[in-house]
């Protein structure tokens, strides 16, 4: 178990991380999600031991590894790390990389030379790089380098695996397939994985729990579905769910959008959003109805075909809302006038009218 208590990191007067309290269970896959500069990399580097916290403490199990006075070195922590730039050593072959970590890692099992060779083969087989063992990094593709970096980190079987945007240097297709592989490796290893990323898709797809950060503070920590469906703060709603924040007023269990008299039911909107008088609507939650229907009146500004769905930008009262609808629904053209309504809310328009307008 990893316990962070009141963790802070300041660079001079600017604070990169403030008041972080967190417990990470053994074997958990935790994704730290946030835009660049939100403090997620700082948090990871504190966990690795590359820097000392300004205040607060970090505990691995029962042992305190860092506080504002002491900080154990990275080489004395039972961790493995995968870097964004891979950080492979150009003068070593693939198998030399693995052997390096087996020889040097302080928590690796003591192995004889033969056992070491077996472990190298085993790890390379796990990441599918066995046939490249004699190659130097310059002779490998980006995806292959990524696998070597991963193999190097997991070979000594560390308790904690830290990953710093490990997929961001790869192209889109490779990223998707590597997601699955990392997830499978996590199942096999049972190690705690702390995975830093700015890609919400990655975080939602892989993690057991997602931690969203902004301005050095934790916005919300919850399971992926929870984060997506019930964002706690406006930032989480917009960053993770790409939600539109409709302004209006909350009255008990009903929301009245500004400039109208409709009532939207509460479907689990968080206290903080209610206090700020927002109703979050994700793009796929909109219903687009003919202009005479009940709802928010708007005009289509942009209509874009995206393959599986169609994206709209709709202007309502000077506000622009994003909507995305499956292509099975008839398309709206730019300049069309329409009515916006949230799915599942009471409407006076019949279903036929939506489909055959």
């Amino acid at each position, binding site marked *: *178990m*990893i316990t962070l208590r009141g963790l802070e990191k300041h660079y001079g007067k600017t604070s990169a991380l403030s008041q972080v309290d967190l417990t990470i269970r*053994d*074997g958990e896959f935790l994704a730290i999600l946030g835009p660049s500069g939100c403090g997620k990399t700082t948090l990871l580097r504190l966990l*690795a*031991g*590359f820097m*000392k916290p300004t205040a607060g403490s970090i505990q*691995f*199990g*029962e*042992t*305190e*590894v860092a506080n504002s*006075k*002491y*900080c*154990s*070195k*990275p*080489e*004395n*922590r*039972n*961790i*493995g*790390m995968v*870097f*964004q*730039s891979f*950080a*492979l*050593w*150009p*003068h070593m072959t693939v198998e030399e990389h693995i052997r*390096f*970590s087996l020889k*040097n*890692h*302080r*928590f*690796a099992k003591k192995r004889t030379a033969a056992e070491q060779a077996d472990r190298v083969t085993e790890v390379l087989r796990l990441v599918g790089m066995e046939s490249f063992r004699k*190659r*130097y990094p*310059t*002779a490998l593709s980006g995806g292959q380098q990524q696998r070597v*970096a991963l193999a*190097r*980190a997991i070979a*000594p079987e560390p*308790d*904690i695996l*830290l990953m710093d945007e490990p997929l961001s240097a790869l192209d889109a297709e490779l990223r998707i397939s590597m997601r699955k592989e990392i997830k499978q490796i996590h199942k096999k290893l*049972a190690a705690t994985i702390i995975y830093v990323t700015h890609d919400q898709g990655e975080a939602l797809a892989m993690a057991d729990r997602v931690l969203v950060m902004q301005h050095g503070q934790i916005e919300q920590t919850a399971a992926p579905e929870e984060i997506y469906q019930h964002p706690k703060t406006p930032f989480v709603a917009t960053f993770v769910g790409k939600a539109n924040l409709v302004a209006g007023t909350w009255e008990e269990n009903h929301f009245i959008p500004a400039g109208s008299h409709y009532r939207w039911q509460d479907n689990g909107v968080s206290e903080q959003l209610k206090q700020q008088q927002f109703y979050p609507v994700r793009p796929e939650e909109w219903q687009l109805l003919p202009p005479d229907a009940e709802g928010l009146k708007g005009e289509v500004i942009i209509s874009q075909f995206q393959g599986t769905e169609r994206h709209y930008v709709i202007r309502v009262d000077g506000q622009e809302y994003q909507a995305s609808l499956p292509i099975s629904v008839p398309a709206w053209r730019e300049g069309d006038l329409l009515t916006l309504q949230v799915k599942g809310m009471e409407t006076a328009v019949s279903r036929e009218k939506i489909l055959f307008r």
Partner: protein
Amino acid sequence: MQLTMKSRSLGEGTHTAFRKFPVLIGLLVLIFFFLLPIIRLVSMSFTSAESFSVSAYSEVLQESVTWKTLGNTIYIVAGSTVISMILGITMAAIMAYTDVRGKAMMQLFIYLPFIIPSYITTLAWVQFFSTSGPLGSLPDWLIPNLYSSGGIIFVLGISHYPLVYLMTVQVFRRIHRDAELAAFVSGASRFTCWRKVILPMALPGICSGGLLAFLSNLDNFGVPAILGIPANIRVLSTYIYEQVIGYGPSAFSRAAVLSVLLGIVAIAATLIQVWFLRRSKVTETTVPDHEPRIQLQPIRRKLLQTLLWVFLLGTSLVPFLAMATVSLIQAYGVDLTWENISLENYRYILFEDEKVLRSLSNSMLLGFITAIICLVFGTLFAYYRFHKSGRLPKAMEAIITMPYALPGTVLALCIILMWMQPLPGWYPGVYGTPVILLIAYITRFFVLQFRGSYTAFSQLDVRMEEAARTNGANLFGRWRQIVLPLILPGVLSGALLVFLTSLTELTVSSMLWSSGAETVGVIIFSFEQAGYSTYSTAFSSLVVLTILFGSVAYLFIQRKWKQRGRKV
């Protein structure tokens, strides 16, 4: 799963004041070796009869010879800088943009005047234009007299244009091709495109190269000493030398005044150069583009190639051949015929005059020790500087740069003044021994190693070391297995530069040498001053051959090394 932690991992944190201790010691050492000599010089210039006075300044500034020397210096430095810039920029533009063939070979010839010390280049040019040289059959009025301001300007300009070339060719290559194409699309002619787009973008690089050439011309001692002293043309560097060697009653404080004047100009120029270099860093992120942008018609291209080769061979090969020829004749002035060719001069310098071999072993040993000391401490300092930013490390870097930015004659005087009595009451007695040469070389060339090592570190991704840490490697293990193998090529090329520069150093040596502690440069210079041109050319030819051999060997090893990491 049990999370384990070594118990000794905590409690290793040390108190900050204690951590700063080594840095403070380092700072004191740096100040002592690199800054104190300069402070000594400045204070000497304000000292007369053991007390503060500006009398030395008023005395020196009232003499007409000072102003004449200053005038000569400005004229010669400005003239040679203009030549260096014209040659350097033209060469850079041709090499960066046109499709002439054989660029790699041309590049080697461009660098040749750069790695051969300028006093040897001067000897070569003297022999090239002498009556017994290849142009000897031409009428006298057609052969230029090198022993003149014009001659000094010419040789300096030729020797230092590679500096301008080096700085500008990089910038030219990094200007994005699209910037040029955008200008053409907007209707610019090639001329307008150069005037409005390429030159303005390359300006920081060009200015930086120009200032570097300016500094080298200002600093140079060998060329004005060999060509100027016989013709009674003084520049500041040779004038300071004459003052110190002359040992007048107030020689040191007079020389100190002149040195402060020269030093101020040099430091100011260095600061401006660094400033320009920072500005040109904007383009550093872009990758250099080595593809030619101007496709010449075959006829024109061949014409240009011929022209380039005539220039390159004419400036880098022919003079040295002329020099080698002189070294092979029996007596100076004798015609070059088969009967007159002999190795007599080589036999003499190698087997009869013990000074020659002694100087060679002195220079080798001095260069070797300098290179080793700089290698170790320069690399350590580079590592520290690379990992720490802030005012203190920056100030430390500035301190070690100063002795190199100062002209050699000025530094030599600083070293003399400092090491006669480094601290009140301490007379180490190094003045007049080889040790003072060693101290001077280390002080002067330390920054070369620092730069080489620093570049090597900056090309090393910090994450590589961090990756080793997360795999449990300690400081020693990281250095041995990761850092050293990766920085070694860069660090060693820095050490080679220090070694070669020390080996052929003349400026500082000429003021600090003593009997028994002669160096290569000093012996060649004294042969030439005494009129033994056959010996000076023979020795120079040997030195040039050694340098060429060393450089080729180095290039070969470097290529092998680079291949190592690439093989599949």
